[in-house]
């Protein structure tokens, strides 16, 4: 049998990044403040995790405006969706393999 840990994605080992991906899987586009609020994080902390995810090509950043205030929204990419699903499968297999 193949090693179940093989498909676990290193990037999702952080609970915060896993949280961001979970939110973006079920919401079309979410802005920075809503993400911060849902995950109960500080600005700097969230920003660094978001850029990691962006560099991996898992999320798209869209800079827009509401009036004169900047409104940055994030959404998941196809690659991000695929990576997340694979990670879920790997977690599932991991649990199954122990039983």
């Amino acid at each position: 049998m193949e090693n179940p840990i093989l498909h676990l994605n290193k990037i999702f080992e952080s609970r915060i990044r896993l949280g961001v991906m979970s939110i973006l899987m079920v919401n079309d586009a979410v802005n920075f403040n809503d993400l911060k609020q849902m995950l109960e994080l500080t600005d700097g902390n969230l920003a660094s995790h978001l850029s990691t995810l962006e560099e991996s090509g898992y999320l798209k950043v869209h800079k827009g405006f509401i009036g004169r205030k900047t409104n940055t929204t994030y959404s998941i990419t196809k690659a991000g969706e695929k990576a997340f699903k694979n990670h879920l499968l790997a977690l599932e297999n991991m649990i199954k393999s122990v039983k």
Partner: protein
Amino acid sequence: MTEEQSIQALHDIKRIMERSTRFLSLSGLSGVGAGITALAGAFVAQQRIDYYKGLGLRNQLDDNAVRWDQLRLELLILAGAILIIAFSIGFYFTWRKASREGASLWDNTSRKMAMNMVLSLGTGGLFILGSIYHQYDLTVGPACLVFYGLALINVSKYTVRDVRYLGLSEIALGLINLFFFDVVGYSLMFWALGFGVCHILYGGLMWWKYERAPAKV
């Protein structure tokens, strides 16, 4: 990564997905409060109807057109007052629950829920005002129930799932009222059942399920 960590991770994912799409701070007590308000309102309405009946008012074809209009106006104002009181009470208990949980009352999920609610209820409200304007009194009660039921089903995507069943009950009552008890006199009874009894039952059930014990969110 151990098995336990995997289970924990899956658990986190599920919780975050739920929390980011559903407004879960909706309190069952909001439903109970709104239900009691509706029952009290229905009682007052019945008193007023009986009072006018005592004056000899029977139906709008009587020569008592002035009194009939007076009764309709009274009931309309009463309905408006019930709506405002019920919403205020509902808002209070949900606000209380949200602040206890440290959740925000105005976030992504509650915004979506409020917007969808306003859209459906606003449409229903205008439809009902139109019916009243054209003197289609028979459809007013059932329309209240059906539109409210549809509004609940619509917002149940964004909040606690039980709301969907409350919505189905409201629609069923509205349609039964319309098809089988098509006399204006029965409308108030169905209205009290739908807005009073159903709210208290489902609100109580939600409270029992989610709030009785210290919240495990």
